[in-house]
């Protein structure tokens, strides 16, 4: 019955778009089953949360006004007067945080399972850039309600960019739209948040997903070795078996988002006052805390460099090494696990967790 209804539509589309090949592709796409299969779900979960962000973001756009005079009041209007505005705003904020979390989990799972190895170098690189874009979304979106915490956190955050050698001054002015955090910064951040970053994200996401489909699911080296020894891992069809499991996860995420929004609605705080003194305990969003805390621990001078500058250069170098891991750990492409890179991953994860915990103390 169902097939008799859908089939003519699919045939109609196939005649015009050639969707038959996609259908064929989906029919044959499989997902390996092994003890690390659980990590495959985090990419899809991040994608789901991204879609939630896009939808709730569009709804917020209907009422949000990006000027220092109106931004705070418009968000206040959304959460108090607009029907379900409170839900949309809270889900947008919570989902943003959960998305960053799942993106980090996805990245580390890919790292530890060596899924970046040949031929998936570009999948890794596009994923890393997507993570940077997601963090950019978080940084730019944080300022938009124009509340006190956001205002001063943006001030501190953009000051860090200003410490970069040579281009620092230019970057600071570019980000702030002037010397100070003002209405020009708000307009600019709004532009980044709703135009520049979504554009970049779309291109990178399309590339990332295309590569995942093109190259198939990666399996850990141990599973690959077993397959070479004649013990291949069982597989399940992507459609519908894996997709249905994915949807279970998405439903669960939706439930968690709803519960967070209803029980812990995202606070709005007090309107930003650029002339007021910075309140105590200003710190960035949790996913920037490890960098923030590290810069605080650094001495004023490291060799001939300013402490903060050395820290920023260190993080830039670490980021570059992390992006280049598929090329540095080229032995993984031949199925050989290098302990150094596993250790590096454990160190990076431990460093992020410990530094974030210290900052939250």
């Amino acid at each position, binding site marked *: 019955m169902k097939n008799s209804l859908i089939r003519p539509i699919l045939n109609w589309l196939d005649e015009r778009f050639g969707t038959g090949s996609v259908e064929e592709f989906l029919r044959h796409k499989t997902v390996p089953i092994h003890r690390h299969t659980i990590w495959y779900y985090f990419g899809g979960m991040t994608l789901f949360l991204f879609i939630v962000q896009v939808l709730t973001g569009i709804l917020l756009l209907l009422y949000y006004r990006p000027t220092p005079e109106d931004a705070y009041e418009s968000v*206040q209007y959304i*959460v*108090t007067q607009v029907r379900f505005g*409170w*839900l949309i705003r809270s889900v947008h904020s919570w989902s943003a945080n959960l998305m960053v979390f799942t993106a980090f989990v996805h990245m580390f799972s890919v790292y530890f399972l060596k899924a970046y190895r040949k031929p998936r170098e570009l999948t890794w690189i596009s994923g890393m850039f997507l993570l940077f874009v997601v963090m950019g979304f978080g940084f730019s979106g944080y300022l938009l309600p124009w509340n006190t915490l956001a205002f001063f956190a943006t001030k501190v955050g953009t000051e860090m960019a200003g410490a970069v050698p040579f281009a620092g001054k230019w970057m600071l002015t570019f980000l702030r739209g002037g010397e100070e955090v003002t209405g020009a910064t708000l307009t600019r951040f709004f532009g980044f948040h709703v135009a520049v970053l979504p554009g970049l994200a779309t291109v990178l996401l399309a590339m990332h997903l295309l590569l995942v489909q093109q190259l198939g699911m990666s399996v850990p080296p141990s599973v690959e070795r077993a397959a070479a020894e004649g013990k291949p891992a069982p597989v*399940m069809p992507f459609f*519908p*078996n894996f997709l*249905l*499991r994915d*949807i*279970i996860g998405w*439903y*669960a995420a*939706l*439930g968690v988002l*709803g*519960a967070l929004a*209803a*029980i*812990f*609605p995202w*606070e*709005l705080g*007090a309107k930003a006052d650029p002339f007021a003194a910075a309140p105590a305990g200003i710190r960035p969003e949790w996913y920037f805390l490890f960098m923030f805390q590290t810069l605080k621990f650094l001495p004023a001078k490291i060799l001939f460099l300013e402490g903060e500058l050395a820290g920023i250069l260190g993080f830039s170098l670490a980021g570059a090494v992390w992006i280049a891991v598929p090329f540095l750990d080229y032995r993984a492409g031949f199925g050989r696990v290098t302990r150094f890179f596993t250790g590096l991953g454990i160190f990076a994860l431990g460093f992020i967790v410990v530094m974030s915990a210290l900052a939250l103390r």
Partner: protein
Amino acid sequence: MRVSVTLSVAFFMGLILPLGVATAAPPKNSCIACHAELEGPQSEPVKKFESDIHRQAGLSCADCHGGDPADESMDAMSRAKGFRGAPKKAQVPDFCARCHSDIAYMHRFNPKMRADQLSQYLTSVHGKRLKAGDAKVAACVDCHSVHDILPARDTRSPVHPTNVATTCGRCHADAAHMKGYKIPTDQVEKYGKSVHAELLASGDTSAPTCSTCHGNHGATPPGISSVANVCGTCHVFFMQLFEKSPHQEAFAKMGLPGCVQCHSNHEIVKPNDDWVGVSSTAVCVTCHAAGDKGFASAQKMAGDLAKVKTFLGRAEEILGTAERSGMEVSTPKVELANAHEALIKARVNVHSFNDAEVQKQTDQGVEIAQKTYQAGVAALAERDVRRKGLGVSLIFIVLAISGLYWKIRQMESGSRG
């Protein structure tokens, strides 16, 4: 060419002239040279004078004491050289006034400087008693010090606002010194407990100290009729209300001081609402008794103040609960601030001693507090709706997940079979 030569000359002159000034020997001052060599109290003025404002202004010993500082012999201190020596206590005001009453001379140092200190001093109790031969009273140097006089704005000066109470207290808190004057000696101690002293200690130098109410050079205790005027220099609105109140005339007839009657004079503590009413803590019952009009009015005012506070407390509590539940209640909280303002205005209106004026404000406060309370009730109702909505949504989500799980199980058991 001529211009460049002129500029070059000017440039070198500019370099050389300051050098000439810098290397010239300082003018001789035999007062300092000799007194610095002496021991004991005679060398004290030299040490102290280093920081004195007169020295900063370019004056030296001879400008006050006369004599010839250029003369290195003892003749420098001869009558022929105009030496005046140290003045006796009774001569001190005139001694200082030689310059300080000369407005033309004083304006050379500071165009805003007053020159009426002596004339004011002569109207003060201190001035009058000194004239009458009482050498125990304060003259210029007793408050300003001598030889190490600092400008009043200097925090180390004994007449800086933060030090005035201590300076006055050196005599006025000394029972032995004040013996015979028949005035209390606990003013400084009482002032120390006052809200004024507390403000001053917190760094607000505009807060009143002794001289703010009593005057400085013309220090005189304010009389009964002028107390409200003294307090009213800062508390203008209260003074205006009091002047229009029935208390103004009644107090005058009974010979009672205005503000001080309820607020005390030196120990002016922060007032509270318990002062108004007919309870044992109320100041009203010191004069009013059951049955008189003032008693009923005091009772009414206290009741209205208590009512608005009850409504405010209720509204604050519910908005606090709503806020802690994550509800956005900043708008009613701002409105509630208006209710607080109405309470403050009602407290001010108490000084009109007209219960209808107080009620105008308390009614307004109650109305706003009730409105914000309702906003709190609505916020909590909204919170409950959200939680119920969440519960229903979660049931549907769990059902959907169960359905999917069942579907997968069914599908995979079928394919295995």
